[in-house]
């Protein structure tokens, strides 16, 4: 049991053209050369070309998407991995957003503020408060299944909305809102343009770095004992219990971690967006996150990132329709103008997408990969 890399050292993983010389190597996150290269290339591109080659408006959008991706990973942990479909994500996003806004807000305004603008402090606090809320809510989840759970967590969103609307000193009230978290790092306001970088560039880089950290952590989690336990709880909870996985414990853990991610994402998202209005934390927001997870592919971290970017960018991309299809009016108010068409297109994309590939973007990637693997044979 103690030998680690000696005896059964070299094993070939099925379907992989590589030889592994130790379990450790086999267990690596990126256990093939092509995977390593692809990820390194992606990160380089994201860290160099994007921030310096694209206009600020797009960076802003990317930053939004990257912050959302952290939330999507969180939802994927509880829904995709642990199988507890939650429509309550908006609630946890809100808790994070408000914790951070209150901590970093200017004291003595209409809304509560403590003036702690140092980013790591409010980010962690946002995650922790949301995580604790998740742990408190989780015991419900152990009693409920499937859509019952989904709709109950939806109830959480509605109750949350009510509280946030009423608690004006925290949220500014409906239709008014408050300033989002103030992102400051070592005395530098990250959302304001400086001599070297614009605010959008800084926020983009910030969200990128944080997303990478959160994604790597999530990836570690899901390939560990904990991730396996989540899958067990998801697929067959009685069997999981019988082989020694405490169902309650792992459901609570999944909710806690997921909410922690949601809290951090909420805080970041609104640091990017700049303004928080309590009505935003509604059913639609929750559903958008579910859509991110499903469109990206449930149960994959990279899928969540793709899904989040896709869902955040799609409305903006459809705005470009008139430039591509000149017969569409760019007049916002025209019945079949770009604004309306963009929404229709958004709906259609979701429909077509999931009909064509219910496993999501990740599924498309798998298809492409399998196609090239099997090429030129069919069966």
């Amino acid at each position, binding site marked *: 049991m103690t030998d680690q890399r000696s005896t059964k050292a070299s094993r070939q993983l099925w379907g992989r053209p590589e030889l592994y010389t130790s379990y450790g190597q086999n267990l690596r996150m990126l256990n093939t050369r092509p995977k390593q290269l692809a990820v390194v290339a992606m990160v380089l591109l994201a860290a160099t070309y994007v921030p310096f080659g694209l206009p600020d408006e797009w960076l802003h959008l990317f930053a939004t998407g990257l912050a959302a991706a952290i939330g999507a990973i969180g939802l994927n942990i509880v829904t995709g991995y642990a199988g507890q479909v939650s429509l309550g994500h908006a609630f946890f996003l809100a808790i994070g957003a408000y914790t951070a806004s209150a901590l970093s807000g200017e004291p003595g305004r209409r809304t509560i503020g403590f003036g702690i603008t140092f980013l790591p402090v409010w980010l962690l606090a946002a995650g922790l408060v949301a995580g604790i809320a998740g742990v408190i809510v989780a015991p419900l989840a152990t009693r409920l299944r499937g859509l019952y759970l989904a709709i109950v967590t939806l109830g959480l969103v509605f*109750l949350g909305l009510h509280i946030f609307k009423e608690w004006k000193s925290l949220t500014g009230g409906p239709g008014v809102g408050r300033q989002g978290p103030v992102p400051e790092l070592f005395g530098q306001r990250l959302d304001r343009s400086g001599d070297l970088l614009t605010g959008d560039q800084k926020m983009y880089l910030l969200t990128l770095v944080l997303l990478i950290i959160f994604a790597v952590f999530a990836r570690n989690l899901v390939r560990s004992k904990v991730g396996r336990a989540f899958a067990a709880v998801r697929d067959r909870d009685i069997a999981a219990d019988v082989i020694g996985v405490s169902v309650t414990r792992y459901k609570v853990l999944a909710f806690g971690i997921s909410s922690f991610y949601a809290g951090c994402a909420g805080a970041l998202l609104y640091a990017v967006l700049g303004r928080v209005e309590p009505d935003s934390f509604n059913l639609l927001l929750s559903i958008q996150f579910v859509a991110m997870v499903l469109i990206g592919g449930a149960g994959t971290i990279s899928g969540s990132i793709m899904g989040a970017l896709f869902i955040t960018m799609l409305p903006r991309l459809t705005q470009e329709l008139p430039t591509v299809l000149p017969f569409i009016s760019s007049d916002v108010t025209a019945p079949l103008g770009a604004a309306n068409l963009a929404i229709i297109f958004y709906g259609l994309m979701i*429909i077509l997408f999931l009909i064509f590939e*219910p496993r999501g973007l990740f599924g498309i990637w798998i298809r492409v990969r399998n196609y090239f693997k099997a090429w030129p044979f069919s069966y």
Partner: protein
Amino acid sequence: MTTFLQAVAGGLGQGSVYALLALGFVIIYKSMRVVSFAQPAFMLAGALAVSFLAEPLLGIPSPWGFFLALVLGAIGVALLGLGIERTVIRPMVGKPVFVIAIITLGIDIVVRLVANIFIGLDVRPVGDPWGLSSITIGSVQVQERHIVMLVTTVLLVVVLFSFFKYSRLGLAMRAASFNQETALAQGISVGTVFATSWAMAGALAAVAGTFQATGAGIDQNLWIIALKALPAIILGGLDSLGGAVIGGFTVGLVESLVATYQGDFAPWLGQNFSVVSAYVVMLLVLLVRPYGLFGTKEVERV
């Protein structure tokens, strides 16, 4: 006492809208285990169809023209539901229910937007003859439209229940929802079952939408009311028709009573607490009964 009865009357009227919506949700759930997020759009489409039909039909003496429009509108939305089921939902049979649920959401977005274009900027009257007029029964002022809504709903529920009782469809629906392959192996045409359920749900949503629009007209945000049916169906149990009706009326009553009394007794709960009161009741029920009042418990055995 008058206040109480007035609140009950209003609650039952509004509850009938929730009950109809809840029935639609439950019928689809019963046949395919999916909560269809397209219901709000069907509701809006139905009200809209009725508002367009009611105008020319109002030549027929008042309430009858409106009811005729209502029937035609319901049939129209039933057909819409049928068409969407056939083209968009059918290919997804057997796929994870949450994927289908998100697809219904896509349908909702598209249908609702098209409806919005027809609604235009102003609130659109639905063409009902009652408006906000009310009659006084004893000392209680009851809105006429609430009486009509309640009566129609009760009639519809009776018709629906006898249909399920005397046709093979009810059982076939449940069978299809639990195990499509085995249902097929018993000779059940699962496709027909699904199509029927979508058509029925569409028609019910159309009626509910029209009723909701009496008294205030059709606004782009009318659909939000459909979400009130969600605590109703959970309360009653996702796959219980009776539960849907009871849940719907419960939500209506709870809301109305909370709106009436909470301001005096528990103002600290916040001004529009009535809006979320249904969810609170739902949570309380679920603490005791995880499958709602009448829902089927999922069987797990090793």
